[in-house]
């Protein structure tokens, strides 16, 4: 759970930084997107590097889901009779919503790939012009797309808030003082990632980027 999560977190950081290139203009953003396909040339032909990266991400996602499923099945087996009266949440809200939050994020990722990678669900849908795709996607009249992205990114924020802390704990964070720091780092990181991802659709929505 922790190791695959860390791989995905590293991807998220790179993805967010790449997204922010949208503020540097269409040429810079498109140039960055084309450069991604060219990394490793000429040692690796075509878009091999990108495909190696994608394969690594798929392995991490599958490992993450597999570990989560094992934990969920064990949890279900461990309590065959449910409580008649159950306090909703006493610990952390983020922790109790990890599983459904993860499902929401998975569905969002599938939509997101069809939208901005393959272009099937995008009004422009031209893989050679990613800037145009992004601007068309978050146009004010398509507010429901922005809303869905916002819901998904906030779900991701909650997921990261508990996930980061939990990963540090699984890897041996062991003092009460360290726990306070780990929780603060996890919260700060989740907020930064949320803000970094949401600033792009909202910039398009408000006309800051067009």
């Amino acid at each position, binding site marked *: 759970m922790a190791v695959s999560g860390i791989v995905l977190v590293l991807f998220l950081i790179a993805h967010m930084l790449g997204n922010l290139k949208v503020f540097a203009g269409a040429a810079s953003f498109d140039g960055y997107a084309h450069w991604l396909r060219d990394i490793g040339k000429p040692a690796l032909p075509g878009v091999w590097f990108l495909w190696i990266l994608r394969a690594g991400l798929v392995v991490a996602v599958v490992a993450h889901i597999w570990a989560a499923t094992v934990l969920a099945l*064990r949890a279900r087996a461990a*309590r065959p009779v449910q409580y008649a009266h159950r306090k909703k949440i006493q610990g952390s809200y983020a922790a109790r919503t990890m599983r459904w939050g993860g499902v929401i994020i998975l569905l969002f990722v599938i939509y997101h790939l069809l939208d901005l990678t393959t272009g099937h669900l995008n009004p422009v849908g031209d893989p050679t012009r990613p800037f145009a795709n992004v601007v068309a996607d978050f146009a004010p009249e398509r507010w429901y797309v922005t809303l869905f992205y916002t819901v998904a990114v906030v779900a991701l924020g909650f997921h990261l808030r508990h996930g980061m802390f939990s990963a540090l704990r699984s890897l041996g964070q*062991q003092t009460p003082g360290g*726990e306070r720091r780990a929780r603060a780092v996890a919260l700060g990181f989740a907020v930064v990632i949320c803000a970094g991802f949401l600033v792009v659709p909202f910039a398009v929505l408000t006309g800051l980027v067009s």
Partner: protein
Amino acid sequence: MNLTLRIWRQTGPEDKGRMVTYQVDDVSPDMSFLEMLDVLNERLILSGEEPVAFDHDCREGICGMCGLMINGNAHGPQRGTTACQLHMRQFKDGDTIDIEPWRARAFPVIKDLVVDRNSFDQIIAAGGYITVPTGSAPEAHSVPVAKANADAAFESAACIGCGACVAACPNGSGMLFTAAKVTQLSLLPQGQPERYTRVIGMVDAHDEAGFGGCTNAGECTVVCPKGIPLSTIGRLNRDYLAASAKRGDTPGT
């Protein structure tokens, strides 16, 4: 105080069980929760009914026998308190109180509110001890222990094994108990020789007993009557990772 109680009644391990409603009148706010159940049971006995079975022993909050899910809270609404030390002043006149046993596959219900916590004994038997020659107590000053380690070990050793952590855990995991029992020894010099076989053996026994896996949700530490911190599980994880790297050791004998 007049209270309505909804109590889980189950005649034996094979019975399906159900919630039954009882009315208890004239409850003093100074009674403990278990004394209130005693009053109910006396009334039930007088009227020829089967009294409600519940576990208890010292009634001083240190033996770990009592354990009730009260309105969905393990040991009731007051933090850092066992059910026997919970007083009726925590409730209001006219309240309806739901009382259930701990729910976990590893804690099968024996009768009514009594569960079998033998699975905790199995975890202890898998390594929760040190192997030393018995005899007269050694000179205490001959083995120095750093103050910070002594304090942290004592914090873990405060665990009374009541099972509230399992009852509250959304995964039905007993990891806070296991972590407390592992780290009270791994922090002390006397626990070092068996440190890494202990953690592997006890976590294996925990998993075999049918407890769920820990996801660091933190519900356990909230209800723990002894306030065992969640970071205890981090100590266990660190020992477990170190032990996994040391191949060739035989887990708990």
